[in-house]
């Protein structure tokens, strides 16, 4: 299964963190730091795989991709295929790109909820659920529509919900 999805910038600041086997927050931060320590050492023209036994336990591997200022990191075990995970990162990034129209780091910073919504449509409980970014976007739009329609009749006309709707 997929153990974790981490998006962080090239300074090591996490932008999206999702662990599929539970880790307490302090431990998460520690793991993120170790991953950053490994990734920041690596040159640009090398392979995208790192054996992660020392960080995430025996049998785990890590695949990452470097886009602009961001690292996209997937951690997985022997039940997943390495190249398929690499493709899945591509799917995830493409989906983000279509969703935010030329995604950049700032989009990720201010769209915490939406990032999780998108990710949950692609990976569900550590299992790959959907690999077509079109389907993912459709599902996310449906959820947004539902929330909008219910907030219209809501008695609190705050701008908050509009913000969440992004």
């Amino acid at each position: 299964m997929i153990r974790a999805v981490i998006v962080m910038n090239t300074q090591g600041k996490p932008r999206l963190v999702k662990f599929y086997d539970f880790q307490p927050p302090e431990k998460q931060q520690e793991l993120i730091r170790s991953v950053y320590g490994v990734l920041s050492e690596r040159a640009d023209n090398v392979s995208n795989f790192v054996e992660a036994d020392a960080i995430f336990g025996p049998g785990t591997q890590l695949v990452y991709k470097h886009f602009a200022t961001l690292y996209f990191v997937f951690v997985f075990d022997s039940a997943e295929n390495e190249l398929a995970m690499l493709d899945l990162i591509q799917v995830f990034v493409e989906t983000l790109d279509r969703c935010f129209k030329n995604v950049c780091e700032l989009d990720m910073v201010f769209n915490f909820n939406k990032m999780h919504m998108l990710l949950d449509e692609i990976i569900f409980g550590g299992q790959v659920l959907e690999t077509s970014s079109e389907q993912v976007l459709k599902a996310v739009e449906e959820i947004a529509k539902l929330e909008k329609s219910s907030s219209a009749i809501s008695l609190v006309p705050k701008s908050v919900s509009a913000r969440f709707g992004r």
Partner: protein
Amino acid sequence: MAGGSSSSTAPAPSLVDSLFQRSLDDLIKSLRSQPAGAEPTLLSRALAEIRREIRSSDPDTKAIALQKLTYLSSLHGLDASWAAFHALELLPSPSPLHKRLAYLAASLSFHPSTTDVLPLSTHQLRKDLSPSSPPPFSSLALHLLSLSASPDLARHLAPDLLPLLSSRSSPPSPLRPKAAAAALRALSVCPDVVPHLFKPLVDCLSSPDPRVVSAAVGAFAELASSGDPSSYLPLAPEFYRLLADSRSNWILIKLLKIFARLAPLEPRLAARLVDPLCDLLRRSSAQSLVFECVRTVFSGLPDHDGAVRLAVDKVKDFLASADDPNLRYLGLRALSMLGPRHSWAVEESREAVIRSLADPDPNIRREALRLIMGMVFDSNVFEISILLVNYALKSDPIFANEILDAVLTTCGRNVYELIVDFDWYVSLLGEMARNPHCTRGEEIERQLVDIGLRVRDARPELVRVARDLLIDPALLGNPFLCRILSAAAWVSGEYVEFSRNPLELVEALLQPRTSLLPPLVRAVYIQAVFKVLVFCFNTYIDRLEISRLSSLGNSTTGGASSIIESKSTAAASCIADGTTGIESNDGIAIGDKPASLFSSIENKDPFTCESLTNMLILIETAVDPLAENDEVEVQERTRNVLGLIHMLREIPTWKTEEQGFIKDNRIGEIVNLLQSMFSEELGPVSVNAQKRVPVPEGLVLEENLANLAWTLAEDDTAPFMSISFSLRSHQHGETKDNAASSVQSTSLLAEHRKRHGLYYLPAEKDGTESNDYPRANDPLLPASQGDVSEDLVKLTDQSLIPRKVKHTKPRPVVIKLDEGDGVSTSPSTTVKESKDDLLSGAIHDVLLGKERKPSSSQKKYSDKSSRRRVKDVSDNGESVSLSKEKLDLGDREHRSSGSRRSKHRSHGKERHTSPQKNDEKEEKNHRNSTRSSHHHERHKHRQRGEALLDVAPQAPVIQDFLL
């Protein structure tokens, strides 16, 4: 950060709070605009704010507070477990937004082991899972279940998962694949739900919706890879059908994962897989699928040569892809999955593998190194090790040490079983020590000493290597090498009889830069000096004796000399052997030339009265300042050496003439006494040696050291005193050191410098002070990567494949002690959780159609006592073994056909090769046998390890399919 108490003392949120509440965006903006270093204060302020707001009765305020907390917890590592109840409070909210925020918070922070309010969510989850609630709600509930279901939660909600899992609505429901993922979690945390969920999950495999199939196949791949795969053998026909039909690479990859686990259990299945796998290998354009095929062939079907051949060709394509390091890396990984039986595959790609040692990617280099080390046999260990150690000189420090590590581990494996020529290996160890990047001092130290103890024939070479290391002043400044130098000093002291020039050795051991060594290593150095000193005197006296007797014998009796000579063989003959070119046939030449200590190196015979006197002076000068050293080991050894020197000095005949030695036998006695101290050979000690030592009578080891406290209390002033003492002595020692180097021995040092420029820097500066010695081996001028790998490939024109090589020398005796000696600790046995057992037992039940009555099982499951559950499983175990026996009988009848039998035999062989699996099986079998009551006694006597594999033919489905 606000402590836990602040939430109880914080004032209730006012209307103002909710009106002017900061949104998540506001919080993020304030965090982004903060000056560096202010984050902790800002976070604790935000947290205090959240603690206040989250208690609001207004759901909007609460939801926003929860959202902010989730954000801070997820990305800034703040603890959110205290807010679990607030997340629960929001779960039933009718607003989809609030509900989603609550579920998000719960899915990121809930876990059965830490969230004690988790059972409270059961009702709400059930409500959201019900078909009447909107699909997005069900989706959220499924998501939470798939991440944080506890066994209890899984058990209670399994019936609610069922309709979602088996829905057959005409536009396929998007919830069904999600339900499959949640079912996977439920099955793996709580085997009790198997009767409810397993069949529907199997049905998902035949769904027309590819997403459902994909989720179900993924779930089975997960179950098969984490537990006992044999339970899923009966599903093989279904998987096989999918393998033929499916066009989705994702599904195919997962199917291959399952088959990779199943194929080793069932040779007939493996045979059936060859064709579809080869087909996929040939026509698929997706590299991920091709790689998965290769992996399945290598790990599951290593006996099918055609498939292996095809897969190896694909791997070659991977290795040849110049522009994609990922494929090169995976290609190497794939090769390392092949066992030693298929070493031809590595041999065929030898050039690519060796080229990979120079790859810019450290992963690829490491993988190539691993492959090469896997190809080492006793016939080629020589070439490969030399190649690698030379290559380590040119590579970067981290990889250089990985290479050294690999070579050391491989060569030292199982008490050096690969090494035939120990002289070569010992000099290789010396070369490794001289690698400028070497940080593996400890292992090299261990092996140097170990070989010294175990391999008698290697000692002369060992002493030579040690000498080369010791006389090099450049090595002394490197803190990673001091352990090696320590071993070298010990070796040259212990086996000094093989030394060509003990006097030179003493100089090396006392050279000025030894002050850079840590105290413990210095102590070893000084002890080595002690041993050398005793040896020199002993040899000298023995020779005098011989010459005296032989001169006597020349005149009077001829027989006496030969007797004495044979008596003093040990030392004298060693010198004769060890020193090539020294004319020591009879030792008559001694004392003819008035040789100085320093010219004696070029001189034929090192031991003259004068050289020994000079040696005494040198030792005394160098060692004297250390008599006041702070470190007790150093001080102690120094005192020993000085004590011996003083004792020798006190004998008045010492200075007069050589014959004095003979006349005054006291020196001879002293030296003989000391020599006997060191003459006993040290051997390796067995790990069990301590156990075999009988406890002497009257020694009570168990008794409490009760009066130790009293003794300590008695002189509790001692530590203080010793501290002050050591401080004083430290200063004293320093001044003395200075004085010694400046006044007393200037002339000696000057002479030393004159004769041994080697030990000193060319400049006039004192070498002892500066640490900037040139490196022992400066790395060669950086050659271009291509050249390096070119060289490498050229160097390894010799095949990696083992060849029959005639060894010119027979392998020397390597002392091995009892069985456990030198063998690393046994691989950790995998402790299988009983949960897996429960799961596979339950699955057996379902697949064999032995369904118990749901009502009774329900009752059993609701009983939480573990004893009860174990009993339940024991029923399973019995039923399984019973049915197995039946099938066994049936099997035996079939075995009349020969082909069948041979298959079974090979199967059995395979079983023996995988110890881990055997372990599991044994454990399982054991459990079965202990559980089954006494009238199943016969099972206990059945051969162990048979229990599980016979399950394969037991399943009727697979019988039909395979035959």
